[in-house]
């Protein structure tokens, strides 16, 4: 430090300031940002939402509003109408395009107090739903008239849950239409998830109940809907009074073992995860405001791989044990029942529900899909090794801004591939297409190629390319020399 420079000092040190410690202080929320202008339509819509909320609270507190339909329409009807109106008036006069201004400053969207409150409320709702449904009796009574119309039977907590879930997908699906009205991929994909949720995962199962058939969800398959291939469910369906039971068993088996590999080969995992699946549907609609919160670090990728394949092995083992137990006169029955119960509780309820949706505002909208879902694991293995789907990158146009990585709900460091001009073939990619939409340089494109062999060198022999890369010491992408 004290050595006097031998060469003339060309920059005067006095003029230099280490002006800012960007690592410690970052660039956060502006202190006093001007508010976005609110138009009268937004105010009125907010008022309607408020009235709907009031009606909901009044109904839940047990102050009777006369008539069966009145409380239902006043609460959910006004909430829905207000939400649609608010979204419409918010985006109506904006220029079509990416709408991410202020996302990282928002209390709701960037882990502020509102986000935590929402997270706690959602988590609390799931806890009550699974373990103390008796506290939901008033809410269940609210949807009773709808249940009578659709299913001809009294509502229970699962009908309430299905109704709220579907309402969220439809209302926030409309929000997706408005935000992405410049992008037909997102519009069509959102129509698809709305359709599958509304028709196959809500209305149809209730109609089946009305027809005295089993309540069956045609858009969910084993291993996500794990009990659809359990011996108990198969027995129940085959022996059910309605005529459709056997078809449902056939449908479940065909979707798991034929449709899944075939469709994934042609279109990648996305045909299910971001077009059909109800969990994906909720993530892509209600969860969209939080998609950027998914952790992106290499560590999170390691955790993802450890957990998701462990869950897959667990459900395969559970299913196998149940079948052995059911066909061999009680062998393994000592472990089969507890295993089934354990999986249902910790994975089916705690992981998929409480954490999967409850943590949306904190850990992003795909916690379950990324870290837990065994269906995603199976689809991912097929996608990684035998699928025509890939995200291609456009030559040298990438400028490493990181919008793609930021908005990847699956935590993939898309930029790491894009900046090297490499195709992205990752087991976790659900093909939502947002990386492509947010790219300001037109670098990313979701494509189904003519074969799986032209995605990158060695992908015509994916398994040997994989093992060779591992043997050469490729760890994860973090080291940049080789990754698998």
């Amino acid at each position, binding site marked *: 430090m004290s050595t006097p420079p031998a060469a003339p000092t060309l*920059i005067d040190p006095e003029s230099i300031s280490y002006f800012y410690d960007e690592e410690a202080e970052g660039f956060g929320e502006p202190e006093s940002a001007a508010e976005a202008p609110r138009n009268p339509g937004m105010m009125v819509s907010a008022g309607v939402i408020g009235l709907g909320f009031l009606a909901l609270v009044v109904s839940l507190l047990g102050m009777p509003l006369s008539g069966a339909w009145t409380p239902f329409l006043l609460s959910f009807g006004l909430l829905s109408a207000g939400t649609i109106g608010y979204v419409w008036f918010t985006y109506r006069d904006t220029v079509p395009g990416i709408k991410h201004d202020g996302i990282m400053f928002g209390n709701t969207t960037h882990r502020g107090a509102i986000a935590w409150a929402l997270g706690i409320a959602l988590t609390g709702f799931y806890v009550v739903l699974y373990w103390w449904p008796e506290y939901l009796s008033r809410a269940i009574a609210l949807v009773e008239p709808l249940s009578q119309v659709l299913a001809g039977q009294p509502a229970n907590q699962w009908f309430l849950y299905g109704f709220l879930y579907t309402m969220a997908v439809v209302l926030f699906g409309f929000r997706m239409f408005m935000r992405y009205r410049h992008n037909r991929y997102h519009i069509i994909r959102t129509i698809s998830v709305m359709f599958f949720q509304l028709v196959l995962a809500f209305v149809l199962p209730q109609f089946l109940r009305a027809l005295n058939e089993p309540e069956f969800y045609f858009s969910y398959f084993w291993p996500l809907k794990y009990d659809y291939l359990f011996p108990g469910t198969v027995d129940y369906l085959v022996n059910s009074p309605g005529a459709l039971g056997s078809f449902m068993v056939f449908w479940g088996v065909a979707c798991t073992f034929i449709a899944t590999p075939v469709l994934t080969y042609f279109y990648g995992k996305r045909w299910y995860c971001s077009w059909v699946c109800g969990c994906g549907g909720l993530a892509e609609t209600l969860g969209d405001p939080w998609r950027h919160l998914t952790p992106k670090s290499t560590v999170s990728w390691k955790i993802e791989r450890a957990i998701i394949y462990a869950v897959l092995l667990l459900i395969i083992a559970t299913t196998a044990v149940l079948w052995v137990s059911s066909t061999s006169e009680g062998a393994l029955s000592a472990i089969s029942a507890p295993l089934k119960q354990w999986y249902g509780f910790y994975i089916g309820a705690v992981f998929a529900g409480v954490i999967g949706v409850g943590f949306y505002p904190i850990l992003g909208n795909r916690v379950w899909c990324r870290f837990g879902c065994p269906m995603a694991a199976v689809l991912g293995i097929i996608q990684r090794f035998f699928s025509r789907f890939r995200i291609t990158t456009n030559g040298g146009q990438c400028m490493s*801004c990181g919008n793609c990585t930021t908005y990847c709900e699956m935590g993939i460091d898309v930029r790491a591939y894009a900046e090297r001009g490499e195709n992205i073939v990752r087991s976790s990619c659900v093909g939502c297409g947002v990386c492509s939409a947010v790219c300001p340089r037109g670098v990313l494109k979701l494509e189904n190629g003519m074969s799986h062999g032209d995605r990158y060198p060695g992908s015509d022999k994916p398994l040997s390319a994989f093992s060779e890369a591992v043997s050469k010491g490729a760890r994860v992408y973090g080291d940049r020399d080789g990754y698998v």
Partner: protein
Amino acid sequence: MHAVIIGNGVTGVTAATRLRQLQPDWKVTLVSGESAFHYSRPALMYIFMGHMTYEATKPFEDSFWRDQRLDLVRDWVTAIDIDDRQLVLHRNGRLPYDRLLIATGAKSNKFGWPGQDLDGVQGLYNLKDLHQLYKNAERASHAVIVGGGLIGIELAEMLHSRHIHVTFLIREPSYWRNILPMEESGMLNRLIEEQGIGLIKETNLKEIVDDGTGKVEAVITEFDDRIDCQLVGLTPGVSPNTDLVKSTPIETGRGVLVDNAFRTNIPDIYAAGDCAEIVSRNGGRNLIQQVWYTGKKQGKVAGEVLAGQDTEYDPGIWYNSAKFFDLEYQTYGMILNTPQPGERHLFWEHPSHRHAVRIVGVDGCIKAFNFMGIRARHEVCERWIAERRTVEYVLDHLEEANFDPEFFVRHESEIVRSLKEQLA
């Protein structure tokens, strides 16, 4: 062997990583006063608009540098001691080097306007500027931006996102007309005005007015019009940053003078990226390239040269891209703002003014493309230009160049019909 790189922008970092690949055992040090870690400069705007956090603009995780044994020094280099092969650092004494790469980038131009150093007047190039913009934006309801280039429109978009009213003062008769042909430039004028941004054309800045406390209060144009504002963005382009080498024996022109292998006139000292001026071998114009892509491309070659490889920089076929508010722009091959002698320009624009294509041919062969609101495949466009495909061939195969997302409305049939009519 110890290689030291001044600057951790895209050129310095690309050179460092390439060097590490080729010379696993060398000691490699990156010195930067601006930031502790490499970040993506073009992403500055997304931090301000709240699209991304600062952390997310770093292309590499912090552990990458340790894993790759690339040493990072947060310091300003105040002098280069060429005789002793040492850098003089502001805080940390002296840093010896065996090979040195100067990748100091560029700095914002200032033209000596009265009031240009007032509080609230700034450019937009680095983290310091961004930090300053955070402060300046707090008290601004109206901003004036002087200079209609890419940084100017980015700054306009940034301020607009925080509901600050923006007036854009440009010298040209139309936005970015010094680079873009009239039609494309016209689409952007429309876009700017559609956003509610005032666009004042063919007008120079005369002075910036002090409010009496050292803060900006207004600007006055050359026609003596006064525009009240609390923030002035000066974005009349950038120039190579040669401050460090200006009075050393290292030769400079507009930038640090280098040959095709980024060698300066001093042995073992190299320069690349925005700060470098590549001397033409055949007496043509020297080459100064100041966009992200060329910085990256030059950095890769500079890393190879540092590692001792016998290689040269080939600029290749020019390309670039940008996004103006919600309109994407890509260009392949060189298109100047007016048709050059011998060039044939074909242009199609969608009635919505959100999509356009320009195809430039010379002697019936394809020379260049502009795409507005349509994504095109880099590899295909570049190959057609390199192979000197005929314009007819390009039109017949235009759909192969499309890179728009699935389900997007395709315009090829309209484009080809219209362009073929022009050709006939």
